[in-house]
């Protein structure tokens, strides 16, 4: 196909397709090395697996026996992430209970004990605590409500949690502030290849419908589970394969346990419940998916599978209030044959020169915990190919707000907000929380979403600085509407603020609020229980107030 591109300096050195953690991590790395970067994301940053993972920066214990070097590098990288984003990470202690009697249970507990004794060697790299071995009584003390029936003993292990959506936004923001262009709700429609070399891409803004062409010296396909679709846009059908594995989480309204607990599901798979910020996650499923990646469904079956499994170790999960579910497809490396759990979680960089498109790369596989390392490896390849020699500095340069973690109490006193609101703001924005509150004035310190909580200044910041273009984008950046109210209390208020920033009409404000509330309901419906069913009436009343259900 002949495309008439003017012979001029390309718009950028590297055009990155995909705004997950690999794409944004790569954008930051390349920008820090001095490359000019444009990133386009079809939905929103962290829309897929990055924003809907289990939210852990773990040390990779599953590789301990087969690939100990992977465990070591994972732990090392976990340590780096603590250094560059200390405000974002939070400790998640886990308990692995062993049930049963006699020699079999004893062997199992000894095996766990020995296994985590080896893992302990790497824990210092990520400031992790050594594992402990607990008797049944000690385990019940450590996790009140743990099912004591037939409990033999337990071991503990120490991991770190992180909000994947915040991590993507921090990487994207840093890249943007260093000169990169980050475009959300913009999809690649064609990757342009001339004489065997990639020259850019034609993209379309999905909100405005406007198409444009960006020229680039290299193009990186970092679209995760979407990467085969993206590859097809450059005529490379079948050259890129992943095996998308759908995983869901069930989100509870509060941490019903301070300690994560692992257990086996009905089919023997390992699942867990973990305290996560001011919520609790039950996870996760892993099933091959052939569904539309932009609109993956969560089913009642999946929710019940997780709740039934967790109930065996923590019976009170049955009484907990489910406020939503998360769903995404892992971009697992392709293999035909193995069951989902047996697939490799490794990553791979594909250079498409051999496929007739030099300068085009695909990033496949990977996981949240090792995103930085993957981005570094990819940046090494891409930067070297373009003649840049600067070395990676993403492990030493703090992410935005990560230079210093303010004290919540001090921030609260200074800006007359609650210490809890201050603490939550700090987990998302670190040292930047101060400037956000200062710039926002009296109006900025007003609480919009009471459950998270989210302040008015943060909503404005999500639009003005972090590039949110819809209310759902604001929600992903702030956790707005993610709590029990599902947006009934806050969607309209937040839409008004976002609308002021984005110039929405009153009708658009209303539509954005209604669509966020409906999206939250959709996420909740497969998990609906007694209390939720009752609360749905209030949601209907609100939607009617927004003109959704009634158009007389």
């Amino acid at each position, binding site marked *: 196909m002949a495309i008439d591109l003017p012979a001029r300096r390309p718009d950028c050195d590297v055009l990155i397709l995909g705004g997950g953690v690999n794409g944004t991590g790569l954008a930051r790395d390349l920008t820090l090395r001095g490359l000019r970067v444009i990133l386009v994301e079809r939905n929103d940053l962290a829309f897929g697996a990055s924003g809907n993972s289990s939210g852990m920066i773990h040390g990779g214990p599953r590789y301990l026996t087969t690939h100990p070097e992977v465990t070591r590098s994972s732990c090392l990288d976990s340590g780096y992430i603590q250094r560059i984003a200390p405000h974002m990470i939070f400790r998640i202690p886990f308990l692995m209970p062993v049930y049963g009697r006699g020699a079999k249970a004893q062997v199992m507990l000894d095996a766990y004990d020995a296994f985590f004794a080896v893992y302990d060697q790497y824990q210092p790299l990520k400031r992790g605590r050594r594992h402990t071995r607990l008797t049944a009584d000690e385990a019940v003390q450590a996790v009140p409500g743990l099912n004591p029936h037939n409990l033999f003993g337990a071991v503990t292990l120490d991991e770190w949690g992180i909000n994947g959506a915040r991590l993507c936004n921090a990487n994207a923001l840093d890249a943007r502030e260093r000169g990169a262009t980050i475009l959300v709700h913009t999809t690649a429609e064609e990757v342009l290849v001339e004489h065997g070399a990639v020259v850019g891409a034609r993209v379309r803004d999905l909100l405005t419908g406007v198409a444009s062409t960006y020229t680039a010296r290299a193009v990186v396909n970092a679209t995760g589970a979407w990467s085969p679709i993206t590859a097809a846009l450059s005529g490379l059908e079948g050259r890129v394969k992943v095996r998308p594995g759908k995983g869901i989480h069930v989100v509870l309204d509060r941490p019903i346990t301070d300690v994560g607990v692992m257990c086996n599901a009905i089919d023997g798979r390992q699942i867990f419940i973990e305290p996560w910020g001011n919520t609790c996650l039950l996870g996760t499923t892993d099933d091959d998916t052939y569904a539309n990646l932009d609109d993956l469904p969560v*089913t*009642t079956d999946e929710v*019940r599978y997780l709740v039934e499994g967790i109930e065996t170790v923590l019976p009170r999960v049955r009484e907990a209030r489910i406020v939503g579910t998360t769903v995404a497809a892992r971009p697992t490396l392709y293999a035909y044959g193995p069951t989902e759990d047996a697939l490799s979680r490794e990553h791979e960089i594909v250079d498409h020169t051999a496929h007739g498109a030099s300068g085009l790369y695909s990033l496949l596989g990977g996981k949240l915990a090792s995103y930085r390392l993957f981005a570094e490896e990819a940046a090494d390849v891409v930067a070297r190919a373009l003649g840049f020699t600067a070395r990676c500095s993403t492990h030493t340069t703090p992410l935005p707000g990560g230079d210093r973690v303010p004290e919540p109490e001090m921030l609260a006193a200074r800006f007359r907000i609650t210490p809890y609101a201050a603490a939550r703001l700090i987990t998302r924005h670190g040292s930047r929380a101060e400037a956000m509150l200062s710039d926002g004035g*009296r*109006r900025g310190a*007003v*609480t*919009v979403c009471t459950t998270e909580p989210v302040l*008015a200044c943060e909503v404005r910041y999500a639009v003005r600085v972090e590039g949110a273009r819809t209310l759902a984008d604001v929600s992903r950046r702030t956790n707005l509407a993610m709590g029990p109210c599902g947006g*009934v*209390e806050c969607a*309209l*208020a*937040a*839409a*008004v*603020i976002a*609308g*002021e920033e984005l110039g929405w*009409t*009153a*009708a658009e*404000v*209303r539509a954005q*609020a209604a669509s966020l509330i409906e999206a939250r309901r959709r996420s909740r*419906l*497969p998990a*609906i*229980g*007694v209390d939720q*069913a*009752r*609360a*749905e*009436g*209030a949601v*209907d*009343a*609100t*939607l*009617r*107030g*927004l*003109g959704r*259900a*009634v*158009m*007389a």
Partner: protein
Amino acid sequence: MSATETGVLVIGGGAAGIAAARAAHEAGATVTLVTLPGGATTQTAGLVWGLSRDVFRQWNDGAFREGGRYVTVGAWMHTTAFAALPSLLDVSSVTGTLAVVDLPTHPSWSARLVANTLGGRVVSAKDLPVSETFREAAVKFDTAGVAEGIAASLKSACEGCAAVLMPPVLGLRHDDVAARMAAVLGLPVGEAVGAVGDPPGVRAARAVRRWLPAAVTVLEGRATVAKGGRATVDVEGVGTVRAKAVVLATGGLAGGGIVFDRALREVTANVPVWTRTRACVSAPSGASRGADPTAWFAEGSPDGVGVRLDASQRVIDADGATAVARWLFAAGDVTVTPAGAGLLDALASGRRAGEAAAREAGGG
């Protein structure tokens, strides 16, 4: 223990129950009403939606007004809603400039956005209550003199305007705040409509309750209807009530008349539950581990499910035709409601059921 006797027993004190009690009383029956706190009627924002308008017109007693164009927070106009309160401003009746009053500390009230939408002008008042919620501000407007003082401080800014639009803060306890401000300003003063639980909604729910005739006996407690040839209802903490006719007006999922717990159930009389597509869902389903709620709720709003009525307003059985009992009627959200049903429909169905129940009681 001797049982209390009544002609018509209405179970539920929301809009449907109150309308049923009023209709039965007007038809000459002795009426007892059993109520519990909460329910969907308390979740009105102050604007009244619904497909039925006849009852509304007939019972319009000044507290409710005919439809108009009302501003909601978020600056959108409902074009066909009814206002449950005299304080709401029908902006279509305003000819001339509308003064929109700023409330700087509330996140969802953007006077600028409202004024831009309506072509109005933003004005600022002195000594506005500093609060983050409309309810907090409304409590201050209840205090004698506060609303008048604020109105006085608006006077010069509102010169040349045709009306004044306030955020939804014009009192929680008092209904005359708008009128008091209007007297000071010499201009019509109205408020926008807030969300569920905001001051206009609280006042509107109170206005509905005022429709209950004083002659109706009110009991508080959870009621359970016994199956049988005669209407016998156990009211927790009160005792047994014998009635000639019973109206179930216990609400839907929001009100607590219908619950979802692995299956959908009607809790007061244990009668079959149906969806909008007319499938009876409270019979045993094919799933051994509990039914899938998405199957019913995907049809539309979750509160559409409920009991089904025959043409005489009687609750029907799982066969879809036979009345469960001659004496059992139902109204409001506990019944299958069409999409878009609202408070007006609860009132209308309450009135139909109340009249039918009174006929049954009189004839028994």
